[in-house]
């Protein structure tokens, strides 16, 4: 009786062994309290420095301060602004509740911008991923000079998006561009992006795809090289054509990469293309290329309709959050070869 009580008290006095919640092992585990099972855990896990109590806070301080000032503060301001409306001269703001959102969804301009964004994002994502998949499959066939081709294809990715926008703008210029000159008499299409909304949309989509192509190809190639060659060879030995081997062996095994790239391209086309639109079309002609992110900026900073702009920012925030959660949820599941 006495002995057992002594034992438990001595056990209690021993340093705490594991912090299971954080899956970390506290350093004092090297003392004899660890059982053999726990020792195994120690081998594969991290050490934790216990000496300094304030050091972690000091290390984290700069990043946390910047995050709060430039991330949380603007986000909260946006949320608050979305519930208010500012008078045209900006002298008074008053609370309107969810009216900003209601007006937004009822307005034909916003609906049109939604459709424009949908068309733009779908084209950039689907076409971009499909083209780069084809290029990566081809590139994977070539053993010699693969790195040279890959570097050459990655080249446009080094050009900033607004700059490549200006490049394509020049190439598709109705009077001295090379593209209308080349296609004259072949295709009956009005390449005048200054007046023709469809041409402006084509210009923006082409630029966005062209700039991101290298990124997609690089990821696809990495994914393809991770697939063991033996699987494809086995299929070929069994009499499958190479197209069939691609369809039934390569593509299913590549699906995690494809999914990752689809999400990344959606995010890219929704948010990163702001600079492109701003440099090339400014949402015009008419509102033909006014995607959601550009409309939020235009309504807020040019038209000074802060309440509506903040409401649009909030909608975009929700969209971005959903995409991120969706992606993280999928990344956890991995295909094993």
């Amino acid at each position, binding site marked *: 009786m006495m002995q057992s009580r002594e034992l438990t008290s001595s056990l209690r006095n021993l340093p705490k062994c594991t912090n299971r919640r954080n899956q970390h*092992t506290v350093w004092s585990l090297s003392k004899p309290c660890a059982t053999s099972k726990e020792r195994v855990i120690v081998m594969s896990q*991290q050490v934790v420095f216990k000496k300094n109590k304030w050091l*972690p806070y000091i290390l984290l301080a700069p990043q946390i301060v*910047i995050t709060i000032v430039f991330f949380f503060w603007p986000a909260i301001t946006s949320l608050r602004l979305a519930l208010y409306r500012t008078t045209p001269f900006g002298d008074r703001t008053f609370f309107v509740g969810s009216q900003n959102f209601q007006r937004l969804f009822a307005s034909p301009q916003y609906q049109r911008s939604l459709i424009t964004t949908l068309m733009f994002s779908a084209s950039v994502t689907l076409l971009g991923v499909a083209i780069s998949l084809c290029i990566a499959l*081809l590139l994977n066939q070539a053993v010699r000079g693969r790195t040279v081709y890959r570097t050459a294809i990655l080249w446009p990715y080094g*050009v900033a998006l607004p700059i490549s926008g200006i*490049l394509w703008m020049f190439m598709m210029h109705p009077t001295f561009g090379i593209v209308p000159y080349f296609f004259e008499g072949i295709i009956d299409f009005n390449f005048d992006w200054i007046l023709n909304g469809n041409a402006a949309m084509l210009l923006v989509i082409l630029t966005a795809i062209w700039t991101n192509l290298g990124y997609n190809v690089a990821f696809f190639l990495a994914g393809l090289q991770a697939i063991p060659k033996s699987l494809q060879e086995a299929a070929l030995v069994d009499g499958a054509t190479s197209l069939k081997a691609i369809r039934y062996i390569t593509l299913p095994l590549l699906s995690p990469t494809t999914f990752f790239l689809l999400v990344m391209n959606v995010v890219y086309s929704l948010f990163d293309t702001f600079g492109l639109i701003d440099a090339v079309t400014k949402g015009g002609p008419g509102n033909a290329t006014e995607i959601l992110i550009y409309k939020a900026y235009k309504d807020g900073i040019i038209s000074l309709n802060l309440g509506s702009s903040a409401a649009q920012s909030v909608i975009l925030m929700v969209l971005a959050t959903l995409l991120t959660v969706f992606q993280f949820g999928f990344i956890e599941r991995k295909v094993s070869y």
Partner: protein
Amino acid sequence: MSQKTAKQTNVLGGLQLNKVNWEKLYIHLLLITIVLIIGFPLIYAFAISTQSLQEVVGRPTLRISNNLLGNYREAWVRSDLGRLLFNSIFVALTSTIGKITMAILSAFAIVFFNFRFKSLAFWTIFITLMLPVPVRIVSTYQVISDLGWLNSYVGLTVPLMASATGTFFFRQFYRTIPGQTTETSWGRPHEVSVVCLTSQFMGQYCRLVCGLVHLRLESILVATHDYSH
């Protein structure tokens, strides 16, 4: 016996090589075409940059003309390119160095210490992954304006320094360091060894970052540009 099989596979390999050669040639031809199509805008841009104004507005050609130096000199002088280049490099370097420093420090704190607000700190940093800069551009502009940082390098660089992606990279790296590696001769985990490993990883990380860093700062440029002008 084994020699014989080796010979057989060799013959087979040789046969395949002969058969495949044409296929390889087609693939290479196709790839070269693709590379030319993809590289065309850049090649065209270079060709145009060597032509005179008359040639540019005339019939479009890919001809390399002799106006290269004149054009570049004029661009350099007229748009004050030296200043612009300095701005770009300065802003990119400052924000990258700040970003990497903060990422190393905070990832170090998150991985190697147990403290009270650990998970809170973790989520505070990683939730920023969800909101790209353009989404909160208007209110970020307002914050920069409230701080009086408009039209300044501080306003351009500091908001970019807190990077969840960088912290994430370093966290993943620190988690791969096994406990034994950080034990030094006196048998206790030692910060110095972590620092050594970090500097090793920095080499790899820098190569990655250099490949990926672009001067894609245009959205923040918009934010700090004073629109009242």
